[in-house]
Every structure is written in C-alpha cells, then in structure tokens.
C-alpha cells in the first residue's frame, strides 16, 4: 500500500503508542487502572473518528455522539433481542452508524456555512437521543438497557481460552486495543492516501481542488461514513464492555464535550492528537477526582484555554520543537 505525505513514518508516534499499549497489562494489574485504559482506548477511537471529519475534512460537526449511541444501541439490542453473538452485532452497530452518517452527511455536505453544519449535526444528535428516550417498548426509554451480553469466549492458539467474565479485564483490554489499532490503521490509510490528499486540498481550497477534478462531495462523504462507522464500533464495544446503556450516557451532549476536550487537548488535525488527548484527559481527570462534580467545569476551562492559547493542542509542542 503506497502511502503519500511521508507514509507510515509520519505516524511513528501513533505506532509507538500502540506498541507501548501492548505491554501495559504485563505491568498493570489493578482492575481500576485497566478500566481507565480501556475507556481511554474506546474514547481514542471515538475522538479519532471525529477528528477525521473535523480535523482533516474541515467540516465542524457537533453531533458525533449520535453515531456512538446508535452503534451502542443497535449492537446491544440485536444481541439482547435476537440472541446473536456480540462479535457479529458489533459490525451491525458500526453499519447502522455508517448509514446514519450517510443520511446526515448528504444534507450537511451541501452546506458551507460552519454555523449551519454545527446546528444541523447537533439537532440530529438531539433527535436520535429523543427518539431513543421516547420508545420505551423498544429501547426501555430513559431507564436504559441493562444486562447487555458480554463478548463470547473463544480459543486462541498458544494462549488458550479467552473469556469475558466479570474479572477478565485483560481480555477486554486487548479487544479494545485491537479495535483501536484497526481504526488508527484505517485513519492513517485514509489521511495518507489519495483520500487524505483530496481532503486536505478540499479543506484548504475547495474551489481550487474542485477545478482540478477532485470531487469534494465524494471524498467528504467517504470521510463522513468511515468516521461514523468507527464511532459506531466504539459505541458497540462500550455497550458490551459496560453491559449498561442509557440515552444520557451513550447519546448525551456530554459525550460530544468529552470528544471535543480530548481532541483539542491532544491536537486537532493530527492522528496522534486524539489518541494522546484521550489518555491525558481520562487519567488527568482521575487525578482531579477530589474535585468531584467540578470535573465538568474543568472541561469547560480546558476548552477555552486550549482554543485560545494552544489551538493545535499538545501536538503543537512537538512540531514547535522541529
């Protein structure tokens, strides 16, 4: 696979982080710390997928929680009601999110105005959350779903049975890591290849790119669908890991705020930014646990501070050194 823009080398930081993550369970045995690592990885997938539309395609959306929630609910409901294995329903969750991405991407891509895109995507997420909350027969409404099945156990050569019981966090850890690695590979492939070049050209000068035969709608749509697919998979993993979903926790605005904070702290428009950002924010906020409910205020403050003083996030520090 030929990669332009410096190829894989340019994303060495991402590969290094993923490589390091492989060894974490050898040293970390505390279940709570592992839980934080798993959440960070799921959030890294989610923030990374948002970054694909926002940082690379330059379309600023504020309804990404809809894709996360749709993936989570679709996979959970299918596993619970149809009795299918979560290994299968997970992909279904991703596809439902991708279809939703296509459905909302088509009207959104017709609009250039940042304000309109922001409001329409936000409105879409509000619609999804309201629909899920208002269909109690189907989704159990605002009470949410409980008892979502765990992943089925399987046998790996040399390792033995991998099961997903209450104490098997290491198994979940590696599942999250594998999906994170796959999503990062997809992202790197997209942004380094032809699509990434086209997206950057469109982001920086849409008319010019259009006149040179780059079809803006097609490439933006690719980014939109890929991004919502990854968000849906992250949501499905989240559902089968926590076994509980509520409309508020899976589709609420707070998810979008978390994505924003993580991406902005890490660095928007870079592959490593959302990855580092989600770990920094998840673990950093754990350090601030004493603050209790002031956590959200810290989020608000971080948003203002980063957007004002370091609009390119922590990744800026690295490029500034060069």
């Amino acid at each position, binding site marked *: 696979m030929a990669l332009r823009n410096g190829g894989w080398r340019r994303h060495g930081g991402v590969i290094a982080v993923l490589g390091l993550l492989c060894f974490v369970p050898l040293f970390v045995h505390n279940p709570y710390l592992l839980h934080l690592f798993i959440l960070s990885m799921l959030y890294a997938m989610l923030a990374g997928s948002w970054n694909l539309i926002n940082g690379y395609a330059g379309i600023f959306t504020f309804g990404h929680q809809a894709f996360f929630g749709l993936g989570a609910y679709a996979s959970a409901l299918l596993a619970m009601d149809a009795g299918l294995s979560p290994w299968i329903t997970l992909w279904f969750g991703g596809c439902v999110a991708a279809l939703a991405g296509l459905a909302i991407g088509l009207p959104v891509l017709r609009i250039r105005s940042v*304000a309109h895109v922001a409001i329409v995507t936000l*409105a879409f997420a509000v619609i999804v959350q309201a629909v899920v909350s208002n269909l109690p027969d189907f989704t159990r409404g605002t009470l949410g779903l409980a008892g979502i099945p765990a992943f089925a156990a399987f046998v790996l050569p040399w390792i033995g049975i991998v099961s997903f019981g209450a104490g098997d966090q290491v198994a979940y850890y590696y599942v999250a890591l594998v999906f994170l690695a796959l999503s990062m590979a997809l992202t790197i492939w997209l942004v380094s290849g032809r699509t990434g070049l086209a997206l950057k050209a469109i982001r920086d000068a849409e008319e010019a790119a259009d006149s040179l035969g780059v079809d803006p709608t097609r490439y933006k749509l690719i980014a939109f669908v890929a991004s919502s697919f990854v968000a849906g998979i992250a949501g499905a993993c989240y559902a089968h890991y926590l076994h509980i979903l509520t409309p508020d926790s899976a589709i609420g605005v707070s998810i979008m705020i978390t994505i924003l904070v993580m991406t902005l702290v890490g660095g928007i428009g870079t592959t490593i930014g959302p990855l580092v950002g989600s770990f920094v924010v998840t673990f950093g906020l754990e350090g601030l646990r004493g603050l209790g409910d002031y956590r959200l205020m810290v989020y608000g*403050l971080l948003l*203002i501070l980063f957007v004002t003083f370091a609009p390119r996030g922590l990744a800026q520090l690295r490029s500034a050194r060069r």
Partner: protein
Amino acid sequence: MLTQLLLAQIVNGIVVGSMYALFASGLTLIWGTMKMLNFAHGEFFMLAGYLVYFCYAVLDINPALSTVIAVVAVFVLGVVVERTVIHHLLSRPVWQFTTIIATLGTSIILQNLALHVWGPEFQNVPYFVEGMLNVFGIRIAYQRLLILGVSCASIVVLWFFLKHTRLGLALRATAQDSDAAQLYGVNILSIYTFTFGLSAALAALAAAMLAPITAVNPYMGLSPLLKGFVVVILGGLGSFGGAIVGGVLLGVVESLGVLFSSTEWSDVIAFTFLVLVIWVRPWGLFGVEERS
C-alpha cells in the same frame, strides 16, 4: 369549545413565541455582526432567571426594577465574556469554529457554577401581575399579556435603535461589510463587544419575563438555546425579521402541537423539520441565499 381551546392555544403560542423571538434575535444579531454562534446564550438566559428570582422572589424588589437589574447585570456579563473569552479569537483563522468551542466552554462553566451555588432544584417565581383577562370566553393571565406587551415594545425599540441611531447604523454597517465599516471609521471591535452585550441583554429580558411561567433552574437555558437555533436557521441566520417571525411561528406550532401529540415528540418534530428545511433551503425560510 374546540375553537376556544384552539384560540387559547394560539394566543399562548404567540406569547411564548414572542419570547423565542427576543431570545433568537440576540443569536441572530451576534451572527449578523460577528459571524459566530453563541452556545452560552442559554446560560445568559439562565443567570437572568436566577437574578430575577433573587431580586423579586427573595428580596421582594419591585418586578420592573428586578428585570432592569437582571438585564443590566447580564449585559455587563456579556461584555466581560466577549472581552475575556471571544475577543482575541475573532481576528484569527477558523474563528467560526473556535468561537463555538469557546462559548461552549463558557456555557459549561456557567451552568455548573449555577449548579454548585444554587443546586438543581426548581425555584418558583411568582407572577408579576395577578389576575386573568376574560375575552370571548378565553381566559388569559395578565402575566402573559405583560409578556406580549414587553416583547412587542422591545422589538420596536430594537428596530428603532438599529435603523435610526448612529450606533445602530454602525452595527448594521459592521454586519454588512466589516472591512468597509472599519474604513469609514467604525471601531468594529467595540461594536463586537457591544453587540455581544446587547444580545445577552435580550436573552436576559426574555428570561425575566418567562421566569414566572417556567420556574428557574441551572439547566433552563438548554431548551431555549436549541429552539433559538431552530428559529434563527428557519428565519435565515442574521435576519432580524426572520428571527421574529420564526420565533412566533415556532411558538404557535408548538402550542398547537401539544393538542395533537405528546410534548416529548415536539422537539423531535421541530428538529426534523429543521434538518429538512436546511436540506431544501439552507439559507432558511426568509433568509437570502448567500453565495460564497
């Protein structure tokens, strides 16, 4: 009986819609001059609600004076927020995105501050005026008539200000072409600050009037914010008249909708309508198509 019910609902819709119009004209004013969305607009609304609650319900200050206090205080807060958080973003690239983030951050901080200081409980504010008016068998609380009167008066004042004062002229000039306005000696940065304060004051006025009807709590700003967005998009972003017509229209449609479906679905319908409108007419129902 049915016609009376319908009429009563339409009147109620116009009353609430006139407040949506005030709230949304603040949003559209900011968009028109600064080309940005203000996600903290709902929090200005919420803070004004609390100010009226404390002045009127707790300290027993006269309602008119309470409203003035709330409006002035929130105007000052708006000026402070613009100066500290937004001002330096406006001269940078992608400010349309960064200002959304910054106002969202402001909104989170203000909302949680209110939550910590005053708790999540609903605080009731008594009506400013008691009693009911009885016309053709329709009973309307004087409070609602007061709301309608205040909103009509403030819309007229605002219109006069924009059309017939030097400051209003400068504001419109900045909205039309900020570079040209600057060439003609308009200090556009001060205009931005003033517009932001004025917009916050409009949200505050709407909150002061609605507080007795809706009660006050830290999350009360979210719903008007989302509805305000719907109104300004439907009316065409930046169009003052569009915001007013859109606001009243949404108010009437909502209160009639309550007769036919449950309130939970009304938001879904409003937002779906919004997405459809944007698909077909991105520049809104009353806005002018903008080719960039």
